[in-house]
């Protein structure tokens, strides 16, 4: 995995942690889906994902006044940073959190353990096939 892909995985994991009721997102699933996107999604989408993760990493100074990358923050502070970035007055900054939630939501919401905890039917495989004749 390239560093920017690993960073994207990390930030998505921060966005969708486990709670008392819901299990953590399956790391392997997250990795596989991020890699799938990196392989197949349009360039624009990949760049938007990496840029959003990078902005999340570098902006705690703008949201909670800590001149540190988000990796150095404890979970509570990091979540406060995320919540403030999501409500930031600069439109493009808060759109980066939308991007993280859109991509992360698509992976987290398909996780079989999360779905089972919410009494949702597990998804089967996406066949990815099409008619050839």
């Amino acid at each position, binding site marked *: 995995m390239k560093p920017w892909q690993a960073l994207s995985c990390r930030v998505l994991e921060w*966005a969708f942690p486990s709670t008392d009721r819901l299990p953590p997102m399956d790391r392997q699933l997250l990795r596989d889906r991020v890699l799938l996107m990196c392989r197949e*999604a349009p360039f624009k989408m990949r760049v938007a994902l990496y840029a959003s993760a990078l902005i999340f990493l570098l902006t705690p100074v703008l949201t909670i006044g800590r001149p540190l990358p988000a990796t150095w923050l404890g979970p509570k502070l990091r979540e406060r940073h*995320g919540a403030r970035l999501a409500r930031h007055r600069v439109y493009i900054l808060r759109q980066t959190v939308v991007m993280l*939630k859109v991509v992360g939501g*698509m992976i987290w919401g398909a996780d079989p353990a999360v779905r089972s905890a919410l009494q949702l039917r597990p998804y089967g495989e*996406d066949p990815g096939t099409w008619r050839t004749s």
Partner: protein
Amino acid sequence: MIQLQTQRRGRHLAYQEGPVQEFEADYVVVGSGAGGAAAGATLARAGFEVLLAERGPWRRPEDYPETTLGAARDLWADWGQLTTRGNSIIPILQASVMGGCTTINSAIIVRTPGDVLREWASLGLGEVFTEEAMGTAQDRLDHDLSVAASSGPAMGPNNNIFLESLKARNREAHPTQRAAHACVGSGQCLQGCRNKAKQSTNVTLVPEMMQRGATILSCAPVQKVWLEKGKAVGIKGRFRHPRSRRFGASFKVRARRGVLIAASATGTAPLLQQSGIKLPYLGEGFRGHPGAGIVGVYPSAIKMLEGTPQGSASIHFRQSPGMKLESLALPLEVIASRVGGFGTPLVEGLEAYQRMACWCAAIRAKAVGSVRRGFTGEPVVRYSPTKEDLETLRAGLLELAQMHFEGGAEAVLPGVHGLPAKLGPADLHHLENAPLSNKSWTWVLTHLFGGAVMGADPARSVVGPHLHVWGVERLHVVDASALPTTLGVNPQHTIMAVAMVVAERLANEEKKS
């Protein structure tokens, strides 16, 4: 449903590699969505040899994805990443698959309102799109696409509470009419109907065309309309692999009688531009029904995905202030972006998913934008809802919030920047005074119109009253891009009827000559 008699069989060709592939047909249709399939089927029924080229692959219900990520990859254009450019970013959801948006839509069917036809008549289009002609086409479509009111398992608690809340507020309320046969209410229309209930054109009109001898090309993006001496003589394109997106063989199709473009409101104008057509109004007149949803959180389970995603609606406010209200089930994966917070508060909010109901307002927007071919060939849509549109949306979300509380919700999630993430019944003043700035609202665009609009005046339109492109012989536009106004109702039925009326006319004229 369409019952097919076996006649001469057509053929289907998907992604091809190797030398240039050449074809010939009476009519060539570009795009297999609502407009293209309706026009193509009408011409095939009239006995013409038709070739239809679709940029996306042909997926059967068993090929459809299960997950939303799979739908983004396999069915949605550009993975759902097309957005407007303007004073805010609005996602534009379109399809890139056989069946176009009919494959991913909710299959709501609404007849063209009389006031829309009268408005078109005032633009000089009344002779062609009469109530009678449109009504006849829509009768036929109702039959072919098994149109019926949502009922039984298609309803489910989300749709039922929506109806009851409307009635409690003395609003017009109805179960939606839908093009679905024996819908079991799996709530998965956006991912394509794996239950073979939804009558999207990839399982109805396109197979019918093939049965009637048509050639269908899939994975076949058309790059240019082939023009010779002011006449459309065919199309040129290049097969593209749906997975690797690698280009394959080039293809050329000669059209003996004409070319019909139905590449959607975001695709048609850029394709005409790419083909060298220079008309002053090309790309202009882009309109839409931008919409937004509001989530209600209820004390007990709603199970939003039980029932069809959009089984009930109201046209109470269609004329004034100009919006349609609908129930809307969103999968867990999509709702995640609508819940406030980040990390633990976000996931804790999502724990209530099974107690959530989502309802939406689609605005008959006054905004007019444009669509152009971008530098790398992608459509560039410039579009910003006006202040009046924002006022309408705000009124719509307020109405929906009140309906949620009427239905027993304990809170609503407005998804509006600057407002608390969660509002209780006593907090609605926040919504009433929500900022009228596009950047504060979470819009989405699914009903699009224009870019190659019809009209009587070549200076203010791209196609004439018979949908023929001004100044080019034998070239027609038969999709949403030709519609000169918004409708205030779901557009599929109107687009299909318009395409059928024009194709029938073409067929009759050709037969006479």
